[in-house]
């Protein structure tokens, strides 16, 4: 390992500009003559738009234009789309309702845009927006996914009865039924996976500019995948042909999935920029973000696990209702299906699994991928069932896990995934040592002396990352391949520019990608720059989500580097008048085998461009290679998190006193960055378990719509984490990387709830497990105990 190569804890290049306020975010980009877009949004969850009167607003100072859904339709701007086709179990395709960027005729959630004011300043836009008069005729609304399919529930979209988008299933229902009939013990749980608001630190923003001279449109936006945004906005929404639209996603301050999707606001900015001939900027306010960023999770599940007399799992069965909100967001259909049910085998050899998922429309903000995306929901189901099953059968939860761990690889699960490598015992064992599970009994007694209930909870999670092999996802309905691209440009002086289709929004790609190049080419880390996020500069790429940038994005870079080295060897052969086959490349130096002849990297790079030693007929001048890498399988990061809590028996307040995480991410490029990813992931998972909840009232009003009511995790909510790593390399990509971005958020909620339920002695608890929730559960448990006595 070199000081800046693979495995080195190199400090992040990008932090200098972020920490000193030199980052360039979308809102920092200012174009001459730019205007501001302010949206008029529905205060109703469900209503007919009877009339929109913009006359008074249009006379307000600074107003450039006021546009409505009718204008959008007149200009034949297409709807936003969901790009993953899911078929119901009866074979019928999912029912996707039209999603115009501005509502027309009817609003379907609080925050649905009904008009946009384009004004000289934001303040003028807001004043004018206040004067846009909208007459609504209120309709009954439904927000709860469990009630959306009821006969008396209001139907949100025409021709979509029971608000049901699809009724999907995976697995062999009959075989699972047979296994349950033969079971010695069955564990049953009703689970609500609470709805979350992503809350990236940088709110979403968009700035669009039209150049009448070239007929080109440029969009700066907060996107995790600018090329996909360009493709959808061009091919489906029809704003401009792809080659006439440039999308730039500059520095982006966190995404967690919520910035993957193509949103109404960026479409409206582009459309309005061409219409008015002025650049149009929109930056979400935080309260607007609560009402318009795609939310996460929101599952209602009944799950059952069947065991034999030895605690071996025989089968798992789950029925889930997934809330997709008022419209289908870009990838919403795939999250509760192929990113959820396919992970229900966990780390266990489960012979039979059957899962049914109903996706429903409700009068709420659309729901889509959020850090982990389906996999946290699956892990929560599996890890709660295993833990509760062990407790019911009087078995040690760690022992029960060990009995059921998959030990042979590759392992084909009954739910599509084929795990290719892992060592689940190793991570469990290491985590138990780090967490001092042996000393837990004593710690529990000590806590009891202080009136505290101590509990310990495991989560031995698995996830499918490195998303994804194109053929696999294509066969499951994805509208796009999920390969990644890279271009490596070697300059005549030997410095290197990497153009990647991945997109960084906090992950540290400028550092880790440079580490790979430094290691492979043996050149200084400082001589490498990484470019991303501009469709005019970078070749088509798929972007960053699903912990894919290492496993897929870096693999593309590795392939391009192989090509660069192969070409450079040819140049070196001409330079040293040797046969190409005798050229060896190591530590930035080309040598002729068996001689003392050598050429430095920089000299070879220069010679590739001056081309004095070879003719164009023998070898093309230049040193630049492109690669498109398509993975052969998903990767399967896995590990064991152990959470230890103390619950105050009087107040129900939970304190996380210890957290141990041992993860197997395959090859680690930068352990410091990996630790940071794990820390952040656990914090978000703890947020879901203890604090966060997007709550709608029965009328569809979001009542936890600001940081006054929506509680984000803070430093004091978290202990100092004990982290460890085990390593089995992924055989599915050239670097052996598995991915680490989502692990913490996937593992954490089950570990927390398993710990709390261990402490308080009842399994009946919902997330977020606030002090009030835990206190109420304690009261119910005490009452039940007294009734039994």
């Amino acid at each position, binding site marked *: 390992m070199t000081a800046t190569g693979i495995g080195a804890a190199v400090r992040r290049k990008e932090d200098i500009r972020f920490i000193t306020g030199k980052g360039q975010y979308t809102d920092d980009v200012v174009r001459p003559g730019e205007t501001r877009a302010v949206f*008029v*949004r*529905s205060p*109703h*969850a469900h209503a007919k738009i009877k009339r929109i009167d913009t006359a008074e607003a249009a006379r307000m100072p600074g107003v450039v234009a006021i546009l409505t859904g009718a204008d959008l339709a007149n200009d034949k701007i297409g709807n936003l789309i969901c790009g993953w086709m899911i078929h119901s179990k009866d074979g019928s395709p999912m029912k996707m309702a039209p999603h115009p960027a501005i509502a027309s005729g009817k609003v379907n959630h609080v925050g649905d845009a009904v008009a946009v004011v384009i004004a000289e300043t934001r303040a003028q836009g807001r004043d004018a927006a*206040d*004067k846009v008069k909208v007459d609504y005729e209120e309709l009954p609304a439904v927000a709860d996914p469990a009630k959306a399919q009821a006969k008396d529930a209001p139907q949100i979209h025409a021709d979509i009865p029971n608000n049901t988008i699809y009724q999907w299933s995976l697995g062999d229902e009959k075989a699972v039924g047979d296994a349950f009939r033969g079971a010695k013990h069955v564990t049953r749980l009703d689970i609500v996976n609470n709805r979350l608001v992503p809350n990236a630190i940088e709110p979403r923003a968009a700035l669009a500019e039209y150049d009448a001279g070239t007929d080109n449109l440029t969009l700066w936006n907060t996107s995790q995948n600018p090329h996909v945004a360009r493709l959808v906005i061009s091919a489906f929404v029809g704003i401009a042909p792809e080659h006439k639209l440039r999308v730039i996603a500059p520095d982006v301050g966190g995404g967690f999935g919520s910035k993957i999707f193509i949103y109404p606001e960026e479409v409206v900015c582009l459309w309005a920029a061409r219409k008015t001939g002025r650049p149009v900027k929109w930056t979400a306010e935080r309260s607007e973000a609560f*009402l318009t960023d795609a939310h996460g999770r929101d599952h209602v599940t009944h799950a059952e696990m069947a065991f034999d007399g030895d605690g071996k799992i025989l089968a798992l069965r789950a029925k889930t209702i997934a809330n997709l909100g008022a419209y289908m967001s870009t990838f919403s259909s795939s999250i509760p299906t192929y990113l959820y049910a396919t992970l229900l085998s966990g780390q266990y050899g489960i012979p039979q699994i059957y899962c049914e998922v109903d996706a429903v429309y409700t009068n709420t903000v659309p729901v889509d991928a959020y850090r982990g995306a389906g996999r946290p929901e699956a892990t929560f189901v599996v890890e709660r069932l295993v833990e509760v099953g062990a407790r019911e059968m009087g078995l040690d939860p760690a022992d029960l896990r060990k009995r059921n761990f998959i030990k042979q690889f590759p392992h084909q699960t009954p739910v599509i995934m084929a795990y290719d490598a892992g060592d689940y015992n190793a991570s469990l064992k290491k985590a138990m040592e780090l967490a001092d599970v042996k000393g837990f009994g004593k710690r529990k007694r000590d806590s009891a002396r202080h009136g505290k209930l101590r509990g310990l909870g495991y989560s031995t999670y698995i996830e499918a990352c490195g998303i994804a092999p194109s053929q696999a996802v294509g066969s499951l309905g994805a509208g796009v391949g999920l390969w990644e691209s890279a271009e490596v440009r070697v300059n005549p002086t030997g410095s290197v520019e990497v153009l990647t289709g991945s997109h960084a929004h906090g992950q540290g790609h400028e550092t880790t990608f440079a580490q790979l190049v430094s290691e492979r080419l043996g050149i200084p880390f400082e001589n490498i720059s990484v470019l991303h996020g501009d469709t005019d500069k970078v070749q088509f790429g798929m972007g960053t989500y699903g912990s894919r940038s290492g496993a897929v994005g870096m693999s593309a870079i590795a392939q391009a580097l192989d090509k660069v080295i192969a070409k450079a060897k040819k140049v070196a052969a001409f330079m040293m008048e040797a046969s190409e086959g005798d050229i060896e490349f190591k530590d930035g130096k080309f040598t002729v085998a068996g001689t003392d002849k050598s050429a430095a990297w920089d000299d070879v790079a220069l010679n590739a461009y001056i081309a004095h030693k070879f003719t164009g007929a023998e070898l093309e001048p230049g040193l630049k290679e492109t690669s498109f890498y398509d993975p052969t399988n998903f990767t399967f990061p896995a590990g064991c998190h152990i959470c230890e809590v103390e619950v105050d028996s009087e107040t129900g307040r939970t304190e996380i006193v210890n957290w141990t995480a041992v993860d197997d991410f395959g090859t680690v490029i930068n352990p410091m960055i990996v630790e940071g990813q794990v820390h952040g992931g656990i914090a978000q998972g703890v947020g879901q378990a203890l604090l966060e909840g997007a709550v709608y009232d029965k009328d569809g009003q979001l*009542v936890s719509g600001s940081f006054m009511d929506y509680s984000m995790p803070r430093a004091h909510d978290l202990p100092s984490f004990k982290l460890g790593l085990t390593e089995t390399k992924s055989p599915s990509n050239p670097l052996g990387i598995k991915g680490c971005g989502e692990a913490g958020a996937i593992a954490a909620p089950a570990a927390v709830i398993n710990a709390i339920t261990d402490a308080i002695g009842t399994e009946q608890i919902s997330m977020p497990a606030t002090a009030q929730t835990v206190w109420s559960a304690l009261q119910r448990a005490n009452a039940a105990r007294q009734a039994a006595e």
Partner: protein
Amino acid sequence: MAMTMTGEVQLPAAKETVWAMLNDANVLKACIPGCEELDKLSDTEFKAVAVSKIGPVKARFKGNVHLTDLDPPNGYKISGEGDGGVAGFAKGGATVSLADKDGGTLLTYNVEAQIGGKLAQLGQRLVNGAAKKMADDFFANFAKAVSGG
């Protein structure tokens, strides 16, 4: 989101007097906190503009007020809806009943209200307190008006 509120207030006047004042737009306008306009459209319908501040949300609500279930002089139902523009909306009603008590009149009210939009998003935690205060202020003003103050 919905909320409910009940209360009663003892007024030093005869039931008929209280009833008349409850139907007098000028009295109501003076008593409703933040009321800027209250114009009588008919015996049972008013047009109203009121400014209200709940937590961080301040808005001018415009809307109509209707009187229904009239049972002179024993009570009515007063209901209305207000559009606060970008602040959202508020709507609801109160059943008001009057009874002779201790030489005066006991007024009992039963409020049901609903808010939506930014008011619900940002102000919901504060709405019950704010509504209670508005009701208290209204009846304190009304009691003063009834007492001839």
